[in-house]
């Protein structure tokens, strides 16, 4: 077990080295002015982490992301529980959630801007719009695949609706909720960042667009690297949690 884990870590390190080598080769092929080399990118990232303006952008994004993530997760689970426990509600509203998942949500961003105004509320709403429908669909799907015996037990025990939800429904769909957590983690992050890239005056997304505008490729690559490390670490942790929950 331990040996297995060490080997896996070694494989990941090896793969990272290969990917970094490919990056290095690409950047020397097309010129470091257009695609900065790995060492240059890491150097820029370290320098940026000392820069108070960058730290301001970072905290603006983190705050918006934290709020959006909680809203998407909480709202998604509540909506999923509601749609999953009622056949009529589910059949009526779930197709619309599927539509919402499918359409490119960037096109809805101007509408969100018009409704929420320029500022943090719009990018939070945009992040929620990315994460919430998927969480709701997965939670509702989890409830629908439960064995009918759970409902029967609850009726036999004469559980109140509230204790049925808290003691039976929620624990039973926990695996789906954890899986949804991981997807919500990524989708909401992307939503907030895209929200910042368009019509925002602060945050990492804004910095990204500003750097693209002035051809500051080292900063662009440094931000992508930072996001990649954050998303990779977060997803891996949630994946490990999901595996442990499955047993």
């Amino acid at each position: 077990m331990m040996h297995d884990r060490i080997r896996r870590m070694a494989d990941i390190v090896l793969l990272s080295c290969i990917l970094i080598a490919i990056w290095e080769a690409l950047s020397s092929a097309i010129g470091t002015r257009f695609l900065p080399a790995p060492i240059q990118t890491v150097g820029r990232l370290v320098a940026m982490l000392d820069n108070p303006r960058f730290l301001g952008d970072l905290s603006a994004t983190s705050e918006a992301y934290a709020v959006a993530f909680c809203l998407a997760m909480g709202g998604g689970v509540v909506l999923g529980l509601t749609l999953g426990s009622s056949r009529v509600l589910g059949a009526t509203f779930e197709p619309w959630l599927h539509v919402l998942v499918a359409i490119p949500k960037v096109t809805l961003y101007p509408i969100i801007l018009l409704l929420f105004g320029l500022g943090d509320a719009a990018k939070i709403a945009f992040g929620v719009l990315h994460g919430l429908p998927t969480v709701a669909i997965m939670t509702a799907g989890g409830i629908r695949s439960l064995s009918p015996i759970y409902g029967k037990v609850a009726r036999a025990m004469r559980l109140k609706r509230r204790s049925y939800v808290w003691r039976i429904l929620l624990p039973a769909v926990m695996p789906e909720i954890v899986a949804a957590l991981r997807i919500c983690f990524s989708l909401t992050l992307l939503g907030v960042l895209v929200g910042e890239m368009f019509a925002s005056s602060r945050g990492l997304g804004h910095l990204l667009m500003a750097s693209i505008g002035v051809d500051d490729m080292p900063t662009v690559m440094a931000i992508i690297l930072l996001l990649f490390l954050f998303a990779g670490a977060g997803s891996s942790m949630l994946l490990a949690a999901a595996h442990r929950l499955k047993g």
Partner: protein
Amino acid sequence: MAHTRRRTRAYRVLTVLSGVAALEAICRAGCVRPTTLVAPSVMLEAMIAALRDPATLKDFGLTLGEVVIATALASVLGILAGLLLHAMPRLRRAFEPLIASYYALPLFALYPVLVVILGVGVRPIIATGVIYATMSVIVATVAGLDHVPHVFHKVARVQRLTPFKTAWRVLIPACAPEIFGGISLSVGYAFVAVIASEFLLASHGIGHAIVDAYNTFQTARMYGLVLALALLVVLINSGLRRFRNRISEDGS
């Protein structure tokens, strides 16, 4: 069963109609400014007006073409990469964190790099589409290959098929439904990436037309274009889903 299905369909139509009617009433009563939200009837009119305009139709065609090419490239690349990853379990496990975090990244920020490599125009947009769409084909292919019965591999060995023939004649047909599922997901991802790049960075295509309408305060036209695009995507998705259901029914 047929009765309940008809009833839920009635509910669905009823909720949509009442939603649209409420929106129409709110807008007509002047509760919201027409620069913020326009009535559904105005949206529909604007959509029809936009679709009559050859320049807008050209934008639609351009975007659709980019999506189709990106999906085709992503399918080929994704199946090849999926076969490779499945054949090398150690590589596959090492790739897991990358796969898990892939869709959180705003990879279209790499657009300037792609422009340097591929030039201005449709090619960098198609490339961002491919970058986004490939991963879902890879994931579906690997998952499909996991479910190929062991006896298929044995038969291929007994017949002394080359690795290429094993993949082409046995493995890919065996997990065709899964692969097709991945490809139909990848259409969605290609759409998202293409529209997002057009929206944020390019100067052509339907994504750019929407931003342009927003920036020039043509609110009705913007809603009309969004509506047209949403209808198109829903149409494509339901077509793909119907086709997928049919092939998975044939398989079982």
